[in-house]
């Protein structure tokens, strides 16, 4: 293995310009992908924070009898892990409303009957996504005594539609840049191979196996991918540190939320992905040349 790494490094040195162009191309592609991932990671966290930690209001039907409350609570508890469940009767709700609207509560006094429903406010013990909350709310809604479940699905749903549109655009852009990087990597390997055609021919004549011949090319592809990934992330980090800190301060006052850099897991994933990209470009090229 040491031999192959040494050989690949020597080949990279002897074709410095070509390899540098490839690494820069990979790094720019990784940069574009990382920008999207940074946006998605933070946007997801914003959505989660707006969802107020997995809270939902369960509005009960008008004919709900509080005597059935323990039974209802037991049914909801059985559906998922509930951290907190508070019953708010329609009287309590109206009192609270009057308190909140103390200056404009005159019209509330004119009401002949309480229009508010009995409700249960719940908070899930753990949730990973908005989808999970949505799914849980749907199952609660299926209970016959439940009139409606409110978990911010209105405006949050609309926001999610826009977010998903961005996601699709992001996927398309990432795929495009992935293909560009793959094409460039494959072509670099192809050029490197043709520049070493005599070497490959001689290797074959002296009894080298196909693995022995191909291994330095694969190592070269892996190194290009790895360094391209690291460089792309480094550019993103520097840009983030310079630009994003100011934006974070401004946004924080509106969102009560810090914009964070990519998670370690995502960074690892990007580096593994770019290394794979280098390898895959090499694989495609050698497969075509040596078929």
């Amino acid at each position: 293995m040491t031999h192959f790494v040494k050989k690949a490094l020597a080949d990279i040195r002897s074709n410095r310009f070509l390899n540098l162009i490839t690494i820069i191309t990979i790094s720019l592609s990784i940069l574009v992908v990382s920008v999207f991932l940074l946006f998605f990671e933070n946007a997801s966290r914003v959505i989660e924070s707006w969802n107020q930690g997995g809270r939902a209001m369960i509005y009960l039907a008008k004919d709900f009898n509080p005597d059935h409350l323990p039974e209802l609570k037991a049914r909801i508890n059985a559906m998922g892990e509930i951290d907190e469940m508070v019953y708010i009767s329609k009287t309590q709700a109206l009192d609270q409303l009057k308190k909140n609207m103390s200056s404009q509560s005159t019209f509330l006094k004119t009401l002949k009957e309480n229009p508010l429903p009995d409700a249960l406010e719940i908070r899930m013990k753990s949730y990973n996504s908005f989808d999970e909350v949505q799914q849980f709310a749907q199952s609660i809604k299926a209970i016959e005594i439940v009139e409606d479940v409110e978990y911010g699905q209105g405006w949050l749903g609309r926001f999610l539609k826009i977010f998903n549109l961005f996601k699709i655009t992001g996927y398309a852009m990432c795929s495009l840049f992935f293909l560009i990087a793959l094409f460039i990597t494959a072509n670099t390997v192809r050029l490197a191979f043709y520049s070493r055609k005599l070497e490959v021919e001689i290797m074959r004549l002296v009894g080298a196996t196909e693995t022995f011949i191909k291994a330095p090319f694969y190592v070269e592809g892996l190194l290009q991918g790895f360094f391209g990934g690291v460089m792309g992330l480094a550019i993103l980090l520097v840009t983030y540190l310079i630009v994003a800190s100011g934006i974070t301060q401004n946004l924080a006052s509106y969102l009560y939320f810090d914009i964070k850099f990519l998670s370690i897991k995502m960074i690892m994933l990007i580096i593994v992905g770019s290394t794979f990209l280098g390898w895959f470009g090499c694989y495609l090229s050698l497969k075509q040349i040596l078929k």
Partner: protein
Amino acid sequence: MDDKNNKNSIIRLFNVSKRYGGKLALKDITLDIEQGEFIFISGPSGAGKSTLLRILYLAENVSEGQILIDGMNLARISSSKLPLLRRRFGMVFQDFKLIPNRTVYENVALVLEAAGEKSSYIRKKVMQVLRTTGMDKKFKALPPTLSGGEQQRVAVARAVVGNPSIILADEPTGSLDSKSAQAVLDFLMEYHKKGATVLIASHNLHLLESTVRGKNIEIRDGMIERTATML
């Protein structure tokens, strides 16, 4: 076919023909080469000498016929086993076929690296062979900086470093002056004395007759015209 195999035969050709498009480069060649023989394949340019060697070192497939190397039928050898078979050959070419951007040492070491030898053994063996061919002082040199004679000595060193049992040399003295050509042939003769089978294809019959003791196979128009022993 195997039951006909002579005990001492290392290379056997049975009715071998090679066709390029419609043109026959080799026609119905049947040949039996014994272990330790020194064979000189002569004939004019285009006679089929190089084609014969290319077939033997597996750079080309035969169009018809069969070849046995040490009892192994080449037609039945899987592609994964080809490298192992090639390691039994040492090859010398007229144009040397050295890797220009690798040093003399690296060019020779390549054979042992490809065979998966340990680096300590490679260092020792390569330097030993380079000493024998008189190229040890230039082990760091790149091939383009060497003379033709020196390059061919490096190529010969590469051919023998893996201790192959067969040496195939295609016009090894073709681009050398008489002194360098003599040095290369002397070295091949020395290696032959250790028990190796050596096949040299060349049109320079005069030089070989004055140097080589062995069998001369004359090829003309892709066919064996005559076989004679050179004393």
